[in-house]
């Protein structure tokens, strides 16, 4: 795992963090992205300590408001909160707040009354975190809103790429799979574009949203074409639970068309890395030999997720306490 602090420090950001919320990557500047990544760098070593805890967010309250099931992202936020000594509260709710008779805004206002500093929200509907952010004094972190954005995932992906490739500028990154239903792809396209990578997206035509080129990416419909010369290959989960019957005939056919195998990896650059935001469907979008192979950085992504989320929690809580003591 190559470390190249010199290249990072040359790009080190000096902008202050001024946002109340982290709703998406789209609205961030390259400098703000670098600030988060650089901050995450300093939190990474906390995981290597015998006592994995710093007092940074002592006395801060963070609510994890998950309207959609999530193991990985929620655990990652929870661990990040605990390592920062914040008080975390988990609040799970059914996908539709309406089914319980309480609106999202009311749910949030009730939480607000308990004066949390930050609210981490995962919701099946695009724009739900934006609705909250407009109403709440607490900072809002988008932990995934439908197929719109998943900013901390893109940040941890960038953090992982930077670890391996030193810089993102000029890299050829290919993102393959269910582009239409993926919030990960949208956040990654914004982030990688802002940091100067060249992004290609690949999917069967039935999983590619219309006018995808308008996001500033190259669109292909062949896995081989996507892999050719790539520095980074990011495989997306086929969201089997979200597929109607008309997207593709079977997972077997999908694997034949778009499944990543060792053979197909031959077209990529020799030092290419393979990423996956998880959870994986082995044998559907990715063969086990690749997922567990030497080019895979999938578990590093998970590890880095904690550091990146610590950085985000830290930066956002700093804004909240401006009128009080130092964060």
């Amino acid at each position, binding site marked *: 795992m190559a470390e190249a602090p010199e290249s990072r420090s040359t790009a080190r950001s000096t902008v202050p963090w001024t946002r109340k919320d982290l709703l998406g990557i789209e609205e961030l500047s390259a400098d703000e992205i670098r600030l988060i990544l650089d901050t995450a760098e300093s939190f990474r070593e906390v995981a290597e300590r015998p006592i994995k805890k710093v007092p940074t967010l002592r006395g801060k309250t963070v609510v994890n408001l998950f309207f959609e099931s999530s193991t990985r992202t929620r655990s990652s936020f929870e661990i990040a909160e605990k390592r920062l000594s914040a008080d975390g509260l988990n609040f799970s709710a059914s996908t539709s707040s*309406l089914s319980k008779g309480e*609106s999202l*805004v009311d749910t949030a206002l009730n939480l607000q009354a308990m004066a949390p500093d930050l609210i981490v929200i995962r919701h099946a509907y*695009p724009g739900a975190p934006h*609705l909250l952010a407009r109403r709440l004094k607490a900072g809002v972190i988008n932990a995934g809103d439908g*197929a719109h954005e998943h900013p901390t995932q893109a940040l941890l992906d960038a953090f992982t790429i930077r670890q391996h490739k030193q810089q993102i500028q000029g890299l050829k990154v290919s993102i393959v799979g269910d582009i239409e239903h993926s919030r990960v792809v*949208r956040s990654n396209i914004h982030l990688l574009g802002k940091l100067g990578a060249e992004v290609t997206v690949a999917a069967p035509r039935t999983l590619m*949203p219309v006018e995808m080129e308008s996001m500033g990416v190259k669109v292909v419909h062949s896995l081989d074409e996507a892999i050719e010369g790539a520095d980074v290959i990011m495989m997306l989960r086929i969201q089997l639970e979200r597929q109607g019957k008309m997207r593709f005939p079977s997972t077997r056919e999908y694997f034949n068309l778009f499944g990543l195998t060792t053979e197909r990896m031959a077209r990529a650059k020799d030092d290419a890395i393979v990423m996956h935001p998880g959870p994986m469907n082995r044998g559907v979008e990715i063969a086990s030999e690749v997922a567990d192979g030497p080019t895979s950085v999938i578990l590093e992504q998970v590890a880095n997720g904690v550091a990146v989320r610590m950085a985000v929690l830290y930066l956002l809580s700093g804004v909240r306490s401006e009128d009080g003591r130092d964060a």
Partner: protein
Amino acid sequence: MSDERPLVIRGGRVVDPSQDLDANVDLLLEDGVVARLGEKGESIDAPDGAEEVDASGLVVCPGLIDIHVHLREPGQEHKETIRTGTMGAAAGGFTAVVCMANTDPVNDDAAVTELILSQARRAGFARVYPLGTVSKGMKGEAMAEMGEMVASGAVGFTDDGVVVAHPELMRRALLYTQHYGVPVAQHAEDLRLTGDGVMHEGEWSTKLGLKGIPRSAEDVIIARDLILLAETGGRYHVQHLSTVGGVELVRAAKERGLPVTCEVTPHHLFLTDKAIADSDFSTDCKMKPPLRAESDRQALLAGLVDGTIDCIASDHAPHHPDEKDVEFSVAPYGILGLETTVPLCLDRLVHGGVLPLSRVIALLSTEPARVMGLPGGSLAEGSPADVTLLDLDAEVTVDRAKMRSKSRNTPFHGWQLKGRAAGTIVGGRRITLP
């Protein structure tokens, strides 16, 4: 409405597209009709006891008619009532509205039709012409009792809110309505193509991650209905046209002489799907059909200019603020229109140089009257004494808090526009709002 005092409107610029008139003349309204249109330079003698209206600096035109309005009564009075809806109509310059049938209960029989009309008479702010449902219970299966409803005052039929999906039902409705000479109005949307879409499928649905509604959802129904219409005859009206393809289909059908008409809404003329991104997922930008792309908007404007599109209608669709204050994906479809249509059309179409004033007035009065077979839309002697006064140069800032509607769901809040309605006269009676 006919036992009113006579009313003389003096000093205004009378623009009546039905008789190609644009002149400074006086107008006498008496016994509920236009009794006299003065000559140029002539001052009409006011009959004894007549009320005088000074219209100097104003345009005097046939009462405006909005043929696509959801008044929500009966059943959804928390959104709007016939009283508040018609107050909004009057405030917005409309002397008549055509109300949709998707109330609760739906307007699928004469009793509901009569209830609507009696509430409208009680309110007295504008004329109300109900459309009945095409199908019983608006379920898309059996035909509703159309003849009974016509006898009670329905002026046509629609299942608006949802499509008449079944081709055989649409075919038989087009045949059966010919007995009454009334139109069938279609909300053209193949729900199987809409799927769980909530906005136009295009660049912005892709960027926002919201499920898209393809243009084809609208176009395939219009195409199918036009094929049926060629077989059946009758009068077919496409509601709220929104796509390039829809405009082309209607244009081609008209060239073939088919009895088809269509309407367009101000929001489809003046907004695109980008508004959803610009407003950070505002549910006031959510309606059906969805705001489309710029290419569609341009096609709609072209269709309006070349006459393919017959008229402008607002699709006034009030929803309570609580219902709209939710995630975009689950918010109800629809926005207000009665109080923004006139300022938008005067500002963007007239002052914007897209169409001459007389044509815009036609699109809001003479043409909708023709499309729905309604009285009005003219100031010729003997016509109903329905008049709208327009102030072309008034500066307006759209303010949702000041609207007469019970609801607040408009994407035009804060827009600065030039031109507004300055008053309405219905059946020879000046409408004053409480």
